[in-house]
Structures are given as C-alpha cells and as structure tokens.
C-alpha cells in the first residue's frame, strides 16, 4: 500500500512536470502578429469572378518598425517583414499583395528566384512598371510562398522578387529611404496551411547568411493560412 502511494506519487509528479514543461514551451513560442487580407469587391479572372482581397506588407532593414515593438524586441538589428508574419488569406480569391521594400541588397545566390513566379500573368509591378523579373544582382528580398502539396491541400507557389534600394539612398524623415513599392496578384485555391520566407540571403553573417532572422519565424519567414 505504502509502495503504491509512493510510486503513484512519482507517476503523478512526472506527469505534472511534463505538462507544465509542455505549457511553458508552447507559451514561449514567438507569436507573430496576424495580418488579414481585406476583401474589397470582386475581380474577373480566367477562373471566373472571385472575391478580390488586398494585403500590405513591408520589409524593413531592422525590426524597430516591424511586429516587434518600438525597441525592436530581442533582436533590434535583424531585418524583418512587417507589420506581421502570419498572413490570413481567403480561399478561391484573387489576392493583391503590396510590399514596400525599404532594404538594400546585392546579388541573389540563385538567379532563378529573381523571376516572378506563380502570380497572375507571371508579372509584378515595381514602382508602377510591370516586370516579369528583376535584376538578380540587386535584390533586396523575395516573397516566396510555398507549402506541403498533399491530399487535402492544394499546391500554392508564389515568388516575387523585391529589388534593392541602392546604397547611399537618402533617408526620409522616418529614418528609412524611399521604398520600392512592389505589387502582385495571385489566386488562392482551397484552404490550407503554407509558409513563406525570403530566398535572398539576408540573415546575419553566419554561413550562407541564412541564419538569424532568416531562420527565425517572425522575421524573414512566416506562415500563411488560407481560410475558406
């Protein structure tokens, strides 16, 4: 009887300890703020008339202006997407995404990702000009959306290169240069969970520059939920 109590207490204590650890670990997750696309009217597409949703993002050379608060959170010097990195898009819709690109850049490691892929007509608009690719030697970032292609979820792939702000560009009053405005539209399919990240190596000085902000959700990578 005494042994039963002792052993039961151990099992219970172990279970409780594990539960608490689980809660703590799950709570400690960075909780990137959510940005939801706003539906305004409909659009004509080859797939028929579908809702038209709009979304605006920025890419900042630091994280002061992003979702990490005024002081930039734990890594103020990391480049980051803003205002949030969890995007919510409507299913079976045309999504027009506008990105203000404030960061400098250089040559992308894989020129393939300097092409516009997966958008309507395979083009994007850079400061009013329609292009199907940008100069691979002057890339700031890319917006590359992809996910698991499997049963229950449609394939979705979008790649939009964001050209770099040239070095030495003058800063405006807000402390950042005049941004490149990149606009592109793509069609969502059924509901699903996707991810997006940047394919330009813009992380800290670690190997291949894919560490730090590139490898941390909430900075240069995030998630996309397509809801029905």
């Amino acid at each position, binding site marked *: 009887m005494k042994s039963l109590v002792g052993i039961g207490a151990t099992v219970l204590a172990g279970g409780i300890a594990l539960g608490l650890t689980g809660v703590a670990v799950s709570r400690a997750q960075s909780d990137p703020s959510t940005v939801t696309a706003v539906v305004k009217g409909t659009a004509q597409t080859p797939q028929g008339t579908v809702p038209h949703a709009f979304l605006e993002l920025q890419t900042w050379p630091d994280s002061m202006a992003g979702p990490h608060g005024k002081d930039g959170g734990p890594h103020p010097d990391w480049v980051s997407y803003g205002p949030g990195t969890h995007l919510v898009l409507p299913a079976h819709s045309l999504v027009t995404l506008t990105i203000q690109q404030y960061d400098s850049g250089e040559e992308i490691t*894989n020129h393939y990702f300097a092409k516009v892929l997966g958008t309507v007509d395979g083009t994007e608009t850079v400061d009013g000009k329609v292009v199907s690719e940008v100069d691979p030697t002057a890339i700031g970032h890319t917006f590359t959306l992809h*996910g698991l292609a499997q049963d229950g979820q449609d394939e979705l*792939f979008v790649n939009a290169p964001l050209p770099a702000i040239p070095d030495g560009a003058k800063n405006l009053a807000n402390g950042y240069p005049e941004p490149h405005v990149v606009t592109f539209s793509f069609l969502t399919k059924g509901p699903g969970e996707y991810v997006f990240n940047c394919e330009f190596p813009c992380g800290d000085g670690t190997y291949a520059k*894919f560490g730090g902000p590139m490898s941390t959700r909430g900075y240069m*990578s995030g998630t996309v939920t397509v809801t029905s």
Partner: protein
Amino acid sequence: MSTGRHEGQRLDTRTTWRRPPVLPILVIWAVLTVLLLLFAPVPARLMGRPASPTMQEIETTVTWFTGLSAPVAALVWAILLYSVFRWRHRGPQPPPEDGSGRRDNRRVFTIWVLGSAVLCLFLLVWGLVVIAPRTSEANPAQEPILVDVTGQQWAWSFTYPDEGNKSATELYLPVGQTVAFRVTSKDVIHSFWLVQLGIKVDANPGETTVATVRPTQIGTFQLRCAELCGLYHSYMQTTVHVVSVADYEAWAQSPAEAHS
C-alpha cells in the same frame, strides 16, 4: 511440470530433433515463420506503388529480405516463447537445483556460424548484384535527359539544359526515358528524394552529385528533402509530374511557368 534436466537424462532413443524440447520448438518455429511470411509483403505495400524500375527493385528486395529474415526471427522468438512456458521456474524463490552444466555445443556453434555466414553471403551477393545494373543504368546507351537540381533553404529549383535552360520549381519528367539529375546546393546539405521513384542523393554545396532514374508510371509524385536543413525543412518539398512524352514536349515548349 517436466524439467529440462529429466528430459536430458532419460535415455531416449529418438533422434535429437524428434525429442522435446526440439520438436515443439520446431513446431512453434514453423508456425511463426508462416505468420511472418504472411507479413512479408506488408512493407512493400506501405512503400506504395513503384513508379520506376529502381523502386520496383527496392520493393522486391525489401519483400525478399523480410521473407528470408522470417525464419531467423521466428527461431529466436520460438525459443523465447517455449522457455517462458516450459522452462520457467515459478515462485518467488530461486530454483532448488541448477540446470544442466553444459557450457558449449560444438555442433550448434558450427551450424549457427555457418548459417549466419550463408545468410550474410546471400545479402552480399544480392546487394552487389543489384548494384551492378544500377551502375550500368547510370551510363545508359540512350543519352539521358539532363536535369540540374538546385537545393537551397528551403526550395528546390530545376533547370533543363536540353530544353534551352528552361527552369521550374516543379519537376516534369517524360515517362519511360532515363533522366540524370545533377544535384547541388546553394547553402547547406539537402537530400534530393524522389519518394515513389526510389532515388535519393544529397545536394552538397560546392559539389555535384548524380542520380539516374527511369520513371515508368504517369502521375504526380513527391519530392522531399531528406536531410535536416533548417527552419522550413519539412516544407522543402515539391511535386514531380511524370507525363507522357508528348505532354513533356509540350511543356518544354511552353514559355511561361506552369503555375497558376
């Protein structure tokens, strides 16, 4: 409960294998072997329908290995089962007397070593013989279609040098033709895995590795990264379209990407 000791001491004129415990263990062994043989096709079923001769070969090998290891596993488990039920001394106290003092059995040792050596030899011959046609497949008579595969964190891209350097993020392959992949990486090590085609080779930065395959099934298949490569390793996958030669030609001629 009969004990091993008495069995051993009684003068028994029957040949060894007909006496207990050998006979009952042989029976259990046979039953277990049959059960495991029934299980033998299961792993290959789990691996899915093969989409290339390579995968076909792999699944055949897996089935054969499972079948051949059935008697081995069955032997171990038969002895375990028998000993649990027949050689067990019950009760909280140790057995009053010891078991047999026999320390060795030259015949058993010899049979065991020979048996495992033969099985091992079989594996070696099997493996080496299967490798041989694969290396010849790497240098086929027909010029293979070249595909340059680039892995990077966390996306795949493909370039077709034979098709005017057409590039894509999904893999298009014509059915029935040999394809040679030249795989490399832009940053860390990835692993290029065509799941249903049974091909896997690492994408190493600064190096190019080659894998060859001949898809034989029209359909869509999975390409996954099989080497942990950072944050979105689990999302670093794309679709492989194996299409008819005509469709492939059409795709190769089309100027735009096949997306949306």
